[in-house]
C-alpha cells in the first residue's frame, strides 16, 4: 500500500531565544526556508529573536 503523500504545508514552532519556553506557531510551505523573526515575548516583556525549532524524528 502506498504511503500517504506528505502535505505541502507544515506547522512550525518558533521558539523564543530568551529561553522562556514561549513560542509562536506558524504555517509555512514545506519547501520554504526555516523561519526566524523578531517578535514579542510576554514573559520577558521584550521583543526578542524567535527561531524555528528543529522538528523531531525527521
Amino acid at each position: 500500500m502506498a504511503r500517504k503523500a506528505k502535505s505541502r504545508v507544515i506547522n512550525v514552532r518558533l521558539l523564543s531565544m530568551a529561553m522562556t519556553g514561549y513560542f509562536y506557531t506558524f504555517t509555512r510551505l514545506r519547501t520554504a526556508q526555516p523561519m526566524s523573526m523578531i517578535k514579542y515575548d510576554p514573559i520577558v516583556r521584550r521583543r526578542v529573536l524567535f527561531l524555528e525549532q528543529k522538528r523531531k524524528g525527521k
Partner: protein
Amino acid sequence: MAAAARQEHIKLALALPARLRTFLARYPHPSILPAGQTPETFKTAYQEDTPNPFLPLRHPVTGRWHEPKYSLRRQAELYKLAREHGVAELLPSTPKSAEERLRKRVEEGLRVKGTGVGQKVKGHKYERQLEAKMEKRRQAMLAMPELIKEWKKVGKRNWTNFPK
C-alpha cells in the same frame, strides 16, 4: 532555725496535692532524702523495683521489655501537676518534661519534614529549579542584542543555527 525551716518545708510538702505527695513518697528525688542519706543507701521498695517508673524497663533475667509503671498519659498529668506547684525538678526524667520536649522539637522541627536543625525543605521541583532557570533566562537576555545583531548581519535566509 533549722527546725523552723524544716517545719516550713513540711508545711509546703503537705500543701501539695495527694497524688504528687504519694508519688514523691514512693520515688523521692535525691535532694529530698532524709539527712545523711544518699540514693545508694536509701531506696524505697518502689525504687528497688523500678529506678525510674517513667521509662520502659528491660527485665534482667528474661530480657523482655516491660512498660513504664506510669503510662505516658499519667506521666503527663503528674508532670503538669508538679509544674503547677513548682516541683517539676523533683520528678524523675520523663519524655514529658519541658527539656525533653524542647530537645525533641529541636531535633525534629515541627514534624514537617525539613524544618529541623540542619534540614532543608525539599519544595516543588519548579521551586528547586527556579534559580537556575532565571539565571539561564538572564544570560539569554544579556546576549540578546548581540544575537540580534548577528542574526541581522547573517540574514534570515542564510541563518543555519536553529534550536532543537
